[in-house]
C-alpha cells in the first residue's frame, strides 16, 4: 500500500491524497491519482476509469489553458510515454525544444525581451522537471521510485543539474538548458540577517541628518485636519479601534496627532473595538498622549470604550443603534451622567467617525456596513500598506479624510504644529520627550530602508558578478 507520494519538485513525502506539496506547493493531483490507481490495480471498473480520467485532467491542469504550448507538451508526454514517476529526461526536453509546436521567434530585439519580461509577471512558466538519467531510471525498481526520494540515486553532475533547474531559475521548456559549472551564488542567511541587524542597531546609535523638507502633502491629510478643525465643541466622535500594537506599532505614531487634535478640540470620543486588546491599546495611547502634551486630562476625552465581539458581522449595529451596541449602560449611561456632555450630543448621530485600523478591510467594512446607515463622515487612519486599497474611497468621496503611513502621521503633525505656531492657546505643544520619540521612529525607518535597499542591491550585484 502506498501511504505517501513523493513530490516530483522537491522530493518531500506527502500524504497520498494531497493536492499540493506541503513543502513547495507543487501540484500533486496527478501523482495522487496515479498512486490511488496503482493501489487499486489495473483499471477494470468504472471507478478506475474515472480515476484515469481525473488523472488525465489533473495532468492537463498542470499547464495553463491559455498556454498555446500546453497541449503540445501533453501530447508529447503521451507520445514519449512520460509518466508521473519523475522519469522525464533532458533528452525529452531536447525533443520538445525541437518540436514544431515550440518554434518561437528568437527574442533578440529589446522590445521583444521587454515583452517576455512582462509576460513573466503575468504567466507562471512551465518549469522543466528533469530529474534523472533514463539509464538510472530503468535500473530503479518502480516501488523504490514511488516511495523514495527520486533524487537519491543521481550522480553528482545530475544533482547539480537538478539544483540548477529547481533551485535557481525557472526555465522555459522551449529554452535551451544552460547549466553553469559554477552554480548559483549561495544565499548566505547569517550575513544577510547580520547586515539587517547591524542597520537596526545603527538606528539607535547614529543619528542621520535631519529631514531636508516637510513630509509630502498626501491627499486626504489636510481634509482630515479640516474635518476635525471644523467640528463644533463637545460633539460625539465615534472611533473604531482595530489595530494591535504588537503587529502594527507604527499606528501609534499615525493616530497620536489626530487624537491630540480631537482632545484639544474637546470632542467626546466613544470607542468600540473588535479586538479583545483594543480597549487597552487605546487607553495606553491616551495615557501616552497625556504625557506627551504635558496636560493631564486627555484621557477624559475618551468617554467610553467597549470591546465588540463578532467582527464585521456586528458593525451594522453601530450604524443603527449605538445605545444597543453599548448595551445602554456605558454609552447612554455616561452621557446621562454628564448633563453638560449629553446636552449637545445625540447618541444616534455622531458628528464624525474615526476608523483607526492597520488593515484596509476594517475601513472597507465600515464604509459598507456602517456609513450607509448613519451617514456620518469617515476619516480613516491606516498603515501605509492599506493606502493603495483605500485611495479610491478617498477619490470617490466616501472617505472624508485619509491619513496613512508614518508620512501621513508626520504630515498631520506638521499641520498641527503650524496651528500651534499660529495660535498657541488652542492646541497644546508637544513635549521634548514626544519630539524625541518621533525623531527616533523616523531614524529607525531611515536606517531600515537603507538596509533593505543595500540588501537588494547586493543581491543583484552578486548575480551580475556571477554572470560575468
Amino acid at each position: 500500500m502506498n501511504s505517501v507520494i513523493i513530490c516530483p519538485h522537491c522530493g518531500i513525502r506527502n500524504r497520498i491524497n494531497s493536492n499540493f506539496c506541503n513543502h513547495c506547493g507543487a501540484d500533486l493531483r496527478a501523482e495522487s491519482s496515479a498512486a490511488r490507481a496503482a493501489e487499486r490495480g489495473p483499471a477494470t471498473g468504472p471507478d478506475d476509469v474515472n480515476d484515469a480520467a481525473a488523472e488525465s485532467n489533473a495532468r492537463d491542469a498542470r499547464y495553463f489553458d491559455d498556454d498555446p504550448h500546453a497541449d503540445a507538451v501533453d501530447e508529447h508526454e503521451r507520445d514519449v510515454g512520460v509518466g508521473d514517476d519523475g522519469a522525464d529526461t533532458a533528452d525529452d526536453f531536447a525533443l520538445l525544444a525541437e518540436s514544431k509546436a515550440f518554434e518561437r521567434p528568437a527574442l533578440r530585439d529589446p522590445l521583444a525581451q521587454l515583452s517576455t519580461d512582462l509576460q513573466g509577471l503575468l504567466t507562471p512558466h512551465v518549469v522543466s522537471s528533469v530529474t534523472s538519467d533514463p539509464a538510472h531510471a530503468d535500473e530503479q525498481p518502480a516501488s523504490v521510485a514511488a516511495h523514495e526520494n527520486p533524487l537519491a540515486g543521481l550522480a553528482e553532475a545530475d544533482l547539480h543539474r537538478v539544483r540548477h533547474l529547481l533551485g535557481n531559475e525557472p526555465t522555459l521548456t522551449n529554452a535551451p538548458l544552460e547549466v553553469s559549472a559554477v552554480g548559483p551564488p549561495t544565499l548566505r542567511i547569517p550575513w544577510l540577517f547580520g547586515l539587517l541587524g547591524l542597520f537596526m542597531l545603527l538606528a539607535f546609535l547614529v543619528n542621520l541628518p535631519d529631514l531636508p523638507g516637510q513630509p509630502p502633502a498626501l491627499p486626504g491629510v489636510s481634509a482630515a485636519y479640516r474635518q476635525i478643525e471644523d467640528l463644533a465643541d463637545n460633539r460625539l466622535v465615534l472611533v473604531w479601534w482595530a489595530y494591535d500594537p504588537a503587529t502594527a506599532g507604527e499606528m501609534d505614531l499615525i493616530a497620536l496627532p489626530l487624537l491630540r487634535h480631537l482632545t484639544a478640540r474637546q470632542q467626546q470620543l466613544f470607542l468600540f473595538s473588535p479586538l479583545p486588546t483594543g480597549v487597552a491599546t487605546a487607553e495606553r495611547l491616551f495615557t501616552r498622549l497625556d504625557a506627551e502634551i504635558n496636560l493631564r486630562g486627555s484621557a477624559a476625552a475618551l468617554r467610553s470604550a467597549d470591546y465588540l465581539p463578532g467582527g464585521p458581522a456586528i458593525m451594522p449595529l453601530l450604524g443603527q443603534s449605538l445605545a444597543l451596541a453599548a448595551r445602554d449602560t456605558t454609552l447612554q449611561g455616561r452621557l446621562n451622567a454628564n448633563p453638560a456632555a449629553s446636552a449637545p450630543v445625540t447618541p444616534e448621530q455622531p458628528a464624525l467617525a474615526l476608523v483607526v485600523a492597520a488593515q484596509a478591510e476594517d475601513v472597507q467594512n465600515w464604509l459598507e456596513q456602517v456609513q450607509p446607515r448613519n451617514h456620518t463622515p469617515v476619516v480613516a487612519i491606516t498603515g501605509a500598506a492599506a493606502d493603495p486599497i483605500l485611495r479610491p474611497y478617498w477619490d470617490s468621496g466616501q472617505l472624508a479624510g485619509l491619513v496613512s503611513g508614518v508620512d501621513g502621521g508626520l504630515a498631520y503633525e506638521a499641520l498641527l504644529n503650524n496651528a500651534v505656531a499660529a495660535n498657541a492657546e488652542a492646541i497644546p505643544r508637544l513635549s521634548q520627550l514626544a519630539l524625541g520619540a518621533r525623531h527616533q521612529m523616523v531614524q529607525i525607518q531611515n536606517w531600515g530602508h537603507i538596509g533593505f535597499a543595500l540588501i537588494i542591491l547586493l543581491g543583484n550585484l552578486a548575480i551580475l558578478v556571477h554572470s560575468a
Partner: protein
Amino acid sequence: MGKRRVVSAKYLVILATVVCLSILGLDRLADVPTVRFAANQLLAWTLLLAAFGLLAGIFNLLYIHAQRIWRGRPEWSMSLVLIGVALAVFSVGMVESSGAFGPLMQWVFHNILTPVPAALFALLAFFLAAAAYRFLRIGRHGSSWMLAGALLMMLTQMPLLRGLLPDAAYATMHWLIDKPVMAAMRGVLLGMSLAMLMVGVHLVFKE
C-alpha cells in the same frame, strides 16, 4: 430515522439563513421601522453569539491542551505553559478590583502582551529581507519590473530622501498606485467576492 432528522435540521438551518438574509436585506434597502427593529435584534443576538463563541473557544482550547497533558502527547509541556499562563492572567484579572483596567493587568498588557508578540513579529523583517534578496533580481523573468517597482516605492517613501528625488519619481509612484496597482487590487477583490459568494451558495445548497 436519524438521517431524516439530519435532513430536517439542514432545512431548518437553510430556512433560518434565508429569513435572516431577508430581514437584513430589507433593512438595508428600505427604512421600515418594524424591519429595523427586527434587524437590530438580530444584530444584538450576533453580539451574544460572538461572545458565547469566544467563551466556547477558550474552553475548547483549555480542554484540548488539558487532554494533551493528560495523555503525555509530544510537546505536552508547551500545553502546560499555555494553561498556566492563561490561568495566571485570568487570576490577575479576577483579583484586580478594577478588572481588566487595573494597574496589574495594565502592567501585564504593556510589558508582556504587547512586546512579546511585537518581538516575534519583528522577525518578519529578516525573512522579508531574505525574500527580497532572493527574488528581486535583474534577469529573472518578471523580476526586473518587480525590482523597479519595489525600489521606486521604497525610495519615494524614504524620509531621508524626502525632497531630494525629482518630482517625476513621486508622480510615477502615485500613478502606479492609482492606476495599475488599484486596477489589479480591485480585480482581485472582485474575484474573491464572487468566489466567496459561490462557495457560500455551494455550502448552503450543496445537496
